[in-house]
């Protein structure tokens, strides 16, 4: 009797299984998701980019190769909520949508400005499949749907192409990590910060003919472009490239970057800076905040067209100064932008919160009015340690 019962229990465990099972060929691996607000309507337009394994896989052993197939399939659904849109997607894609391998999410500019990205935070935080580590962009001056239908050169998988642009090339911002959704949510939840997302811009030339594949490859693309500034969960404004560069320096997100146009006598110098170390010192002077931004690091010369003899210590100092001036300018631009927008975009509040917690409690309600009065001192010190394989610029009279 005991044995029969044991056997019965064993059978139960076996027959109850497989409930959560899904075969790989029943999955639609979602690599990118775009969310747009439809004008003058409550509806959201959600675009899904789904991998077509047959086309995306580098080498599929089966004969009669699938290399002609498109690597991704992009489709769009509508719904009042994200969940409704995903549910409608089931009618279009014959497979179960699988979100764990998402590379990035794009939010249309309209959605970011009007609806607010809070709705996305809520959905993503609740969903068990979504990972918070995917990149999040705002589509600059366009919709997410448009960006997602762009065919990318070099990489079969457009989503991967976008991710690698951020990770490997790290754009022109020099962000060592990347800004993912988790970062944005963290910034949103904190009382001393505001979220910032990367901007993605369509750089297709007008009127390109999509039917011609070659033309499409050459003329249809998108690139990273500046940072999207949010106040609470709404998009307020864009930072241009210089301002964005200053912003990432102030937020200590840069490990190394190349400065291309440090201005000096008679030309420009390109310098690769690395081993960067940033900190902001907070003091109170006359009941006003006083910030000192320290940024030090090392650099090596890549290219110069300046009229200077680098082996001469005085000229070398000039070069160093040129680099430091360039960085100072970028950072100052970011600070100016923050002042123009009328709230603490840069996140001085975080440093202030950490170093003057008592005062922060007092001031946090009207923090910007105090920040306005603040004195911000920039103390930039990049040491050029290496001039490459030669000293002087190549000159004719040499």
């Amino acid at each position, binding site marked *: 009797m005991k044995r029969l019962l044991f056997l019965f229990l064993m059978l139960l465990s076996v027959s109850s299984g497989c409930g959560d099972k899904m*075969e*790989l*060929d029943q999955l639609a691996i979602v690599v990118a998701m775009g969310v747009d607000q439809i004008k003058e309507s409550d509806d959201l337009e959600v675009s899904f980019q789904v991998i077509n394994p047959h086309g995306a896989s580098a080498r599929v052993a089966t004969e009669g190769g699938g290399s002609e197939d498109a690597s991704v399939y992009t489709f769009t659904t509508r719904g009042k909520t994200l969940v409704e849109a995903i549910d409608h997607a089931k009618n279009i894609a014959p497979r179960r949508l699988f979100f764990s391998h998402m590379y990035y999410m794009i939010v249309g500019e309209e959605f970011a400005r009007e609806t607010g990205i809070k709705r996305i935070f809520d959905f993503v935080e609740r969903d068990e499949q979504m990972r918070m580590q995917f990149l999040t962009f705002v589509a600059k001056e366009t919709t997410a749907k448009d960006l997602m239908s762009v065919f990318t050169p070099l990489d079969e998988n457009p989503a991967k192409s976008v991710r690698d642009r951020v990770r490997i090339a790290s754009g022109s911002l020099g962000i060592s990590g990347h800004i993912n959704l988790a970062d944005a949510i963290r910034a949103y939840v904190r009382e001393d910060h505001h979220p910032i997302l990367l901007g993605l811009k369509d750089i297709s030339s007008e009127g390109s003919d999509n039917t011609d594949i070659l033309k499409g490859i050459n003329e249809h693309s998108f690139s990273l472009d500046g940072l999207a500034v949010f106040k609470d969960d709404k998009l307020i404004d864009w930072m241009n490239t210089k301002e964005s560069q200053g912003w990432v320096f102030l937020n200590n997100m840069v490990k190394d970057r190349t400065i291309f146009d440090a201005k000096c006598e008679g030309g420009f110098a390109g310098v690769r800076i690395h081993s960067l170390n940033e900190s902001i010192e907070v003091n109170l002077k006359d009941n006003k905040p006083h910030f000192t931004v320290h940024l030090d690091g090392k650099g090596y010369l890549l290219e110069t067209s300046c009229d200077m003899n680098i082996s001469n210590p005085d000229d070398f100092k000039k070069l160093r100064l040129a680099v430091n001036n360039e960085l100072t300018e970028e950072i100052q631009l970011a600070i100016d932008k923050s002042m123009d927008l009328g709230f603490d975009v840069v996140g001085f509040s975080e440093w202030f919160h950490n170093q003057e917690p008592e005062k922060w409690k007092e001031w946090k309600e009207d923090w910007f009015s105090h920040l306005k009065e603040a004195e911000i001192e920039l103390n930039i010190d990049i040491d050029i340690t290496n001039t490459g394989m030669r000293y002087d610029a190549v000159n004719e009279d040499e």
Partner: protein
Amino acid sequence: MDKRNHDIEETMSQFDQPLSDHLETTVAQFLQYLGNSEDIEVARFMDLPVPFVVVHFQAMNNEEMISDMINSPMIKIQNQQSDILIKEPSLLFSKIEGTKSTPLQTYKDAIENMIHGNVIVFVAGVGYAYAISGLLVETRNVDEPQNQTVIRGPKEGFVENINVNTSLIRRRVRNPQLRFKTMTVGRSTQTEIRLCYLEDEVDKKVLNEVIRRIESVRTEEVYESGMLEELIDDYGRKHRWYSPFPVAQVVERPDTVASEVQEGKVAVIVDGTPFIIVYPMTFLAYFQAAEDYYQRFDFASFIRIIRLGAYAISLYLPSLYIAITTFHPELVATDLLINLAAQREGIPFPAFIETLLMEVIFEILREGGVRMPRTIGPAISIVGAIVLGDSAVRAGLVSPAIVIVVSLTAISSFVAPAYNFSISARILRFIMMICAATTGLYGVMFFSTVLLIHLCSLESMGKPFFSPIAPMNFKHHKDGFFRFPLWVKNVPFLRPWIQHKAKKENTGS
């Protein structure tokens, strides 16, 4: 079965009668007891002062040796000293040099000796017979072991003959403490069994346990040490009968047996098989090969870790593939997942069936390869390679990834030096796959936990099977996961500074 046992004992007891004085009647009676079997060779020497009859089984003894060692010297001595021998025929054998003889009083003794391969000599007027041993037909030569081969190390392997095997061990352990204890198992086969151990090293509890179990075996027949191993296993214990793990070490190499005996273990030699079993056994010892001690310790340790890893692969890989692809695709790197998904396009079976199919095909191929006559052996590998590697994928039955999984599993299962142990992974793999297919990684973890608990509960001759790990013993870890250098064990002899110290003390005193 019981009735048959009883019959055999009864028949033997019928023979328990003293031999008679009269030569002809004795021999006739003796032959009649053995049913005048046609392979009995009877040589009569009746025209001599002391007539005698030599009886033996034709195929068991060397005819030439019998004539050299018994017949010729007997005739010669009778010609020389016939006067004394007629008076006192019992002195006959004491006059022959170099032959070992045992006097036998009853028919039963004579029959038992004869079936063990001795030559029986009936001598007129003595009232008893003589058993002469050591004249067995030569068996197979000592050869390189077939299964436990090494790159560096002795190339001798055990043979079927128990005496040769005994001598192989004795030659390696020249220690007066080395003991052999002979026992007999199997009522019908009367198989000779010899326990081998070092008197001062052996664990008496283990030795007594082995003796007790062998004595309590009731069986008709034992042809191989595997049968004995099964008969004296722990099956009385709860949860033991369904365990897939063997708890005896099977050795084909005299050097391994020698080193095990040196460690205080008990070797059981069974007549008629080159496989010797050694007790007690531990889990980690299954991953130790004889060669580990003949190669550098760092390399041996590395290889040992590889073996453990390979065992884990052969146990887990198919189930991990099933669990991860069907339950946890989020665990796979995206690019790999896309490739795997592309391979699965158009495959009609779920991953579990796919894996099961390939595993079963492989098991069939492997079994086919073992039973195949040597000359057509290569055919198996050709068919196997084509069927497994290519056609199944081309036909769309399985995905290429499965072929990799199954091949890696198969190769890994050959890595374990102990064949009897690697079989356990072959069986458990399938159960693991079912667990993976029903509840994913949770099932795999669950079954692994069950296995671990089970392993900790196992015993080999009363000693914990999972020994250096489950009852944690750091001392034994010197030769566990890693093989520590030999000088770690034998500190005082090989460390030069200690020798210096000893010398100084000597000269100082």
